[in-house]
């Protein structure tokens, strides 16, 4: 039991990271209708900014806020300069996917050019302390990650479901042309969406870095796990991203501890679950079914 709890909290801690990244993917999907392959690299880039600020002597919390602000600007600029000119992702999904792959390559190379190949270490936002839960020592950092994740999810749910700007974002994602005809400033809304997603990336990256090291490859694997998370939970659902992320964390960190065949294939149980879920519900656990009558 004690060991199980230990594995469980490790899984939840890692799952929280996938969920944070997943939230960013959901924000972009819900405002722009596309899957952003560069999400992880943007998060890596902003995490380097957090590290630079922290290295310059800023407390980590302040550095994180600085990184989020920088992320917001980067996201907004990326949308204005790169994503928007390509056009509507509903019309040419492949072209937009290729553009995000281009951004993936670009951000990765840019980070190496700016910060080099050195691996840097970033401290824990919630210190190195531990707390005893049912006989298992759990790091505050993991509980902190879960807390921040919950706060993020609530904030985004409120923004999207309860505010005018959130309504505009959902409207633009569904039908940009009609939204424009209703007076929604489409470009500005999309810019905000990208900015928010990139700002979220800084948070995800700041929690990922202490589990490995700040370098240009920091977010490549977590992004794949985050994709798995939103596939499971549903692309358009914040709850889905959170539940999906935590589930993926548990499946990859707990199940292989008890089933030997998965030792070298930790992603396999997650993959099987995704397959089963999608066969039953092709829109993910919490995803919205698209019903359109013509």
């Amino acid at each position, binding site marked *: 039991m004690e*060991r199980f709890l230990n*594995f469980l909290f490790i*899984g939840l801690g890692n799952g929280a990271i996938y969920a944070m990244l997943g939230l960013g993917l959901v924000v972009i999907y819900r405002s722009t209708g596309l899957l952003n392959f560069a999400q992880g690299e943007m998060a890596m880039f902003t995490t380097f900014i957090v590290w630079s600020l922290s290295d310059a002597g800023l407390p980590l919390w302040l550095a994180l806020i600085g990184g989020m602000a920088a992320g917001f600007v980067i996201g907004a600029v990326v949308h204005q300069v790169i994503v928007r000119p390509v056009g509507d992702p509903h019309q040419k999904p492949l072209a937009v996917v290729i553009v995000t792959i281009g951004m993936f390559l670009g951000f990765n190379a840019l980070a190496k050019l700016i910060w080099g190949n*050195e*691996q840097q270490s970033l*401290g824990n936002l919630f210190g190195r302390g531990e707390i005893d839960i049912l006989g298992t020592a759990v790091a505050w950092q993991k509980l902190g990650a879960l807390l921040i994740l919950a706060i993020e999810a609530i904030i985004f749910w409120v923004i999207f479901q309860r505010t005018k700007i959130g309504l505009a974002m959902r409207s633009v994602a569904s039908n940009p042309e009609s939204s424009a005809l209703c007076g929604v400033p489409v470009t500005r809304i999309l810019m905000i969406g990208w900015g928010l997603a990139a700002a979220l990336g800084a948070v995800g990256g700041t929690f990922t870095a202490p589990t490995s*090291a700040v370098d240009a490859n920091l977010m490549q694997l*977590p992004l794949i796990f985050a994709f798995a998370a939103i596939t499971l939970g549903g692309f358009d659902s914040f709850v889905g991203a959170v539940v999906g992320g935590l589930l993926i964390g548990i499946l990859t960190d707990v199940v292989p*501890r008890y089933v030997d065949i998965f030792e070298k294939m930790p992603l396999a149980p997650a993959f099987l679950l995704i397959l089963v879920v999608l066969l039953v519900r092709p829109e993910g656990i919490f995803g919205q079914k698209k019903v359109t009558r013509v």
Partner: protein
Amino acid sequence: MTSTRKLRLGAVAAALALLMTACGRDDETADSSSSDNETAETVAPGDTTDTGGDEEAAPAAFITPEDDCDAYDATKGIEGGTIKIGTVRPESGPYSIYDNVTKGLDAYVKAVNADGGVKAGDGTTYQLELVKADDAYDPARTPGEVQRLVEQEGIFAMVGQIGTSNNLAVRQYMNDACVPSIGLATGSTEWGNANEFPWFIGGLPSYATELHAYLEYLKTEMPAAKIALLYQDDDFGKAYQATLKKDIEGTDMELVDEQSFNPLTETSPESKVAQLSGSGADVFIVGIGGAPCPAALRAMPGTWTPATYVSITCSGKTAMSLAVGKDEGLYSVQATLDPGTPADQQNPKIQDFFTRGAAQGLTESDLQGGITAAGWGFGSLFVRALELTPVVDRATIMNTLYSMDGENYGLMLDEAQSTTDGDTDPWVLEDLRVVRRTAGSWEEVKPLISYDGQSNDFAG
């Protein structure tokens, strides 16, 4: 329309004909090689020790290009007193940190040239030119890049090429072309096989020897050790696994749990470390590299305090600083000086590395990080071979490397010696000491031991 169809059919028929001939040809090859098989049984192995060197100073001829090569160009890449060498490394892609190895090699080459060049064994002083290529650590891209260096750039030899599978991807090609590849930046046990692939010589201690040196220390210190192993899912980790199983056989030591880790597909080794921590082990062998190695150390619960061993690749200053406080008391082994350790920094070799490296633009973190120093070492090995070889040509330089006797080059520990023999012992670094991390510095706990000639025996 009908004639179009005919035309198409014609094209298909032609294509099929071409394939048929390919079939026929291929069957023949298969046949002939299988008959080779049979004859091979009757050929006595080790027949290669035919006539010795024609010149007196020439090293024992392990390689005789007349017999071993279809096409051999002895001095390609040497022109106007400059020797052109090449290296392939992952400048881009997920393993770009290893580019720092090449940084060290590059700086070494520049430093040698700045000092006036290498005075080779043939009495000539040569300048060196290093041509670099990038394979992004993808073994499918390595052959193209190596061929570019060999065929287009016309290099004399490869030096310090990175990655086991990347080197394996070109081993046949280099042997067919009879181009030396010197100081491979990998310790795979594959490089012990000079008889089959004589043009490859490693630049690191064999992974097997590395772990064996520590296990031997463990045998005296903790004869009933219960060992937990975390190993990387590749040739490095598997060499550890095999050596460990072989070495504990017939002892009171026991492997209580083992877990593999794949840095390409797993984000963090934390849960695997947690599992190992529950195994009751009092020795923890961390056979993984890169950022996941310090991550594994950090993931160790405070209640679990086994004697923990990290590999050479995880003992540099960068890795230790990433371990954030979890480095105290670690064990590792060393064949070379550690530029990140205060005691070693007083050594004249490190001092020399610091001054000449800094003059070529290496930063403080490059100089002390450990990875860059490895590249400096591969360069030193090549230059030492040049200094020793009586004739500067491809075969002689390899033969020189296969007949070294008590050499000490580059940043090797002061008493360490490099002694080689192509047939049985193609390993240059086999003298190791066991060290323990104490107050941010590696301290010797077991003096240098020479495992000369034994590396191939330790491999599982």
